[in-house]
């Protein structure tokens, strides 16, 4: 048995649940008399909804297939070897479940080395090798092709990427080394770093060709046929494949520097994967593949044994799996159809909601407000936004006409909501106002209609308490900007019934939102955590820590923005209001910053001025501040903030605000943009020891978002 086989056998034993991919070898006669050809098809035997992956046993199968074609090539029985995939899928890379089970560095090293050892054989056969990217290609799938002599790509491919850095890995089966040597460092940085850190952006077939990753592109309808005809021309020498020279001069360094600045702006140095990938790309300049592959092996092993990757995989599973089956949601069969939506209020939030409902549900949406002017303004906003979508080509003229016709306004609630199945209010955040709105709405809607509130901090139970049918009320808390942030906190009030809740979840799914079930507790999940943590930062400032110091305190976490920038985004007035609500509920933990009160009173929208190009404390704000003389270091502020977050999450879990810590993390990732490498936040708090320190125990079992024991 070869070393590779032994290596992979060990890995396969660790991962008995692998969905194994077969590497079929089939022979065919190429057109134009170009000879006998061996075509390897990667196929896991399932349909296109279960994409082909490359776990250790799958690699063993590919290794065996290469054994066969290598011998045939050596004997002169074939003129070339091709690799392609099952319909719609080429291969989507390593099976991540196989990475999660790894406990020892040597096993992690084996994953990288095993892949290299198999793939690199494709570049050293006695005949040329061809990859035909026929469908979705990611990670290790892309890398199989990079080891081949030539590549073609289907114009119909919707998804092609090296997403490793997005998850917390590097393209470690040749990607970091081969791609820059094929298309130059700058394009490699775009694919490996920029796209990955840009919400895992995928390339389409056309772009794969334009980037020079593929040598030829063909339509989906007869992609394999045309690829094989092209192969015949190449093998017969009728067609010479020309690739532009790679610039190994200064451009290489500039590309790597560009990659670093992208990584800095996205993860702020807090997650290692992008930087490890950039180091390998930088070193690949000398064209030494062997050295590059070894560096990839080491990087993979280090990252697989690192907490950031484990958090990244945990976060990936939350977003891709848990988000699709919300914990605690009732049987979806109970959901009632929603064929018309009412929106109370016609302000900015209400208008954004109307647009979202119209686009996703494609049912009539009626806005109401207290006077015609407001109603017209709200409907006008929606129509303008639809026109913008039309201009950008996001919708066609017919669809734009349809959407505009769906969104109307009315002053007469009875006429507007008489046949509505779902009415959401987005009026002023005041209990009395909201209760009155619901009472008016209940008087006119059909008996089955759901009443939803977009409140961010008021009690949904109290809001429903005066109604005849409080069981139909749910909280439906969106995050701003509504069109961008995926999270929707669905609040079950005390009397909410299962049918109403099921309908709310069904609507959320149609809206393409990530719905998380939360208890009717003050500020629910995201706002409660953010307010608590901002409160601690502001308290440090109030007590005397300079703003810049306090604001830098969380930088090592790599959050999407600093606390003060977050405060400015939320708006000091809103933040102050939510802090007030939480202070009323939990006065011992949530303070109301007097300095923040002064800023709000002075009508300031922010704390910083950006005149010099970077944020500096606004002198007018500085003049408003009254601070103490306790000056903390960044570390002290950070410890205080993290302790507060951990403590608050522990309390929320004990109160049953959500089912599990997983849901807290899912909320923070999808509602606040907190990063994958923190796994939301609880994996980070666990691994930094904050959870134990503050609450005496971890949030997650060892092995969840961490290396199993």
């Amino acid at each position, binding site marked *: 048995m070869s070393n590779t086989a032994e290596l992979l056998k060990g890995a396969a034993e660790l991962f008995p649940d692998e969905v194994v991919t*077969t590497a*079929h*070898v*089939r*022979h*065919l*006669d*190429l*057109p134009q008399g170009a000879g006998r050809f061996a*075509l*390897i*098809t990667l*196929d896991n*035997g399932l349909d296109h909804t279960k994409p082909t992956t490359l776990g250790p046993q799958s690699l063993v199968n590919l290794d065996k297939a290469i054994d066969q074609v290598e011998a045939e090539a050596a004997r002169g029985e074939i003129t070339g070897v091709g690799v*392609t995939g099952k*319909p719609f899928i080429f291969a989507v890379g390593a099976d991540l479940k196989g990475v999660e089970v790894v406990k020892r560095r040597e096993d992690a090293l084996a994953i990288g080395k095993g892949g290299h050892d198999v793939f690199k054989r494709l570049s050293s056969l006695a005949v040329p090798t061809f990859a035909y990217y026929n469908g979705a290609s990611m990670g290790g799938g892309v890398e199989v092709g990079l080891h081949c002599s030539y590549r073609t790509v289907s114009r119909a491919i919707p998804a092609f990427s090296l997403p490793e850095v997005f998850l917390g890995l590097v393209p470690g089966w040749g990607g970091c080394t081969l791609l820059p040597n094929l298309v130059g460092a700058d394009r490699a940085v775009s694919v490996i770093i920029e796209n990955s850190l840009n919400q895992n952006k995928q390339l389409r077939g056309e772009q794969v060709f334009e980037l020079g990753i593929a040598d030829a592109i063909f*339509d989906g*309808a*007869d992609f*394999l*046929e045309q690829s*094989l*005809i092209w192969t015949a021309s190449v093998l017969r020498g009728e067609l010479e494949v020309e690739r532009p020279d790679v610039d190994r001069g200064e451009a290489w360094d500039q590309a790597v520097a560009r990659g670093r600045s992208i990584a800095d702006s996205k993860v702020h140095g807090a997650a290692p994967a992008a930087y490890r990938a950039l180091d390998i790309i930088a070193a690949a300049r000398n064209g030494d593949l062997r050295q590059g592959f070894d560096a990839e092996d080491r990087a993979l092993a280090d990252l697989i044994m690192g907490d950031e990757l484990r958090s990244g995989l945990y976060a990936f599973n939350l977003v891709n799996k848990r988000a699709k089956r919300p914990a605690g949601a009732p049987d979806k069969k109970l959901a009632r159809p929603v064929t018309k939506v009412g929106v109370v209020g016609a302000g900015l939030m209400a208008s954004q909601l109307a647009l979202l409902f119209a686009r996703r549900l494609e049912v009539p949406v009626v806005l109401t407000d207290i006077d015609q002017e407001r109603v017209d303004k709200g409907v006008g906003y929606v129509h303008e936004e639809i026109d913008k979508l039309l201009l950008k080509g996001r919708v066609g003229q017919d669809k734009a006409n349809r959407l505009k016709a769906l969104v109307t306004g009315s002053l007469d609630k009875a006429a507007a909501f008489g046949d509505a199945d779902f009415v959401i209010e987005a009026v002023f955040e005041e209990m009395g106002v909201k209760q009155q709105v619901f009472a008016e709405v209940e008087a006119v809607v059909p008996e089955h209609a759901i009443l939803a509130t977009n409140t961010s901090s008021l009690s949904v139970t109290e809001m429903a308490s005066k109604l005849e049918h409080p069981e139909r009320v749910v909280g439906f808390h969106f995050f701003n900007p509504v069109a961008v942030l995926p999270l929707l906190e669905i609040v079950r009030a005390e009397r909410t019934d299962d049918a109403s809740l099921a309908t709310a979840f069904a609507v959320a799914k149609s809206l393409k939102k990530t719905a998380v079930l939360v208890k009717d507790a003050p500020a629910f999940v995201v706002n409660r955590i953010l307010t608590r943590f901002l409160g601690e930062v502001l308290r440090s400032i109030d007590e005397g820590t300079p703003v810049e110091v306090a604001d830098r305190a969380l930088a090592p976490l790599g959050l999407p923005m600093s606390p003060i920038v977050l405060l400015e985004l939320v708006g000091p007035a809103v933040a102050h209001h939510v802090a007030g609500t939480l202070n009323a509920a939990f006065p011992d933990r949530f303070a109301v910053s007097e300095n923040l009160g002064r800023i709000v009173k002075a009508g300031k929208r922010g704390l910083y001025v950006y005149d010099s190009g970077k944020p500096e404390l606004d002198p007018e704000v500085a003049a408003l501040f009254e601070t103490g003389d306790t000056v903390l270091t960044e570390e002290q502020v950070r410890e205080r903030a993290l302790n507060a977050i951990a403590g608050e999450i522990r309390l929320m879990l004990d109160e049953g605000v959500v089912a599990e810590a997983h849901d807290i993390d899912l909320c923070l990732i999808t509602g606040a943009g907190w990063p994958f490498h923190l796994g939301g936040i609880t994996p980070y708090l666990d691994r930094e020891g904050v959870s134990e320190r503050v609450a005496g125990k971890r949030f997650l079992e060892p092995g969840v978002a961490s290396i199993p024991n």
Partner: protein
Amino acid sequence: MPRTARDVVFVDGVRTPFGKAGPKGIYHETRADDLVVKCIRELLRRNPDLPPERIDEVAIAATTQIGDQGLTLGRTAGILAGLPTTVPGYSIDRMCAGAMTAVTTTSGSIAFGAYDVVVAGGVEHMGRHPMGEGVDPNPRFVSEKLVDQSALFMGMTAENLHDRYPHITKQRADEYSVRSQEKAAKAYADGRIQADLVPISVRRSDESVGETGWGLATADEPMRPGTTLEQLAGLKTPFRAHGRVTAGNAAGLNDGATASLLAAEDVARELGLPVKMRLVSYAFAGVEPEVMGVGPIPSTEKALAKAGLSIGDIGLFEINEAFAVQVLALLDHYGIADDDPRVNQYGGAIAFGHPLASSGVRLMTQLARQFEEQPHVRYGLTTMCVGFGMGGTVIWENPHWEGK
């Protein structure tokens, strides 16, 4: 409104390699519509001077128009092939003469002035759609003795034809079939067939049938080069005990598709498209369904009469070989020898296969090749028998004809 009929030309024709129907066949896991789509795309690739939006119609024939052969195949295949949405399409059925009827019907419309350029072709995936799938013959056929029950089974009609022409013996049919295989093998060796084949990617999941994964079909699967009389003599006669019709002297059950481009001659010249054949006349005729194989005789008589030609004017024949007996019946009628070199020079359906509604265009594509090679020939004809007692004949003029 005064009108002038326009000359119609055959611009180009292609086909898939033909496969054997059934689980072992190359196309067992391939959709019928995909076969047509790939033919249409090949026509466009081979004729880059044709702006796709100039195509006025896509007429695609299939006998069993359900499943992947249903849904108005001409239209759906056009969309799947990437033709502009402005190009319409429809489906045609005249059983075995489907593609031939697609050609004649659209040609009539071109001559009339309704179309400038059309795609006409056909498909039959007899593995996915066995003969007789979903049929529901009116009981009056039998109760009123409108047709004999054997009329529904093509093999039985071939036996009936042997009854009608006792001088066409099994021996003659077998000899003819051996020659068909020989000629087809030679045509392959000479590279006459491959140029008009569209390679088709084929997938196989069942390892009991052969290597699995993706492969490529580049040649006709049913071919049996080297077939001998002795081998044929030993075959069973499945349609009648001690009968004459065997798997060896008939076409098999096959999968495949064809497509052709037709145009008004002036439009072809304007666009710089090749002119491979010029349509002279066509005719269809009905005969007793029990002896459907005799159909080409009256249809050829009609087509010759309409063209003002006699059989002696025809220099090349492409006769569909559904059954050897049916070809021999036509040859006997005109006193043409069984091995006349003008007949089926490349062999025929006994060797290549006969995916029912697709075959008409195969005959034309092959005749077009022969015209090119033989400029001394002025006229040729394509003819075939059709289920339920019909025949179809199309007479073509060779544009390469050198004149007298």
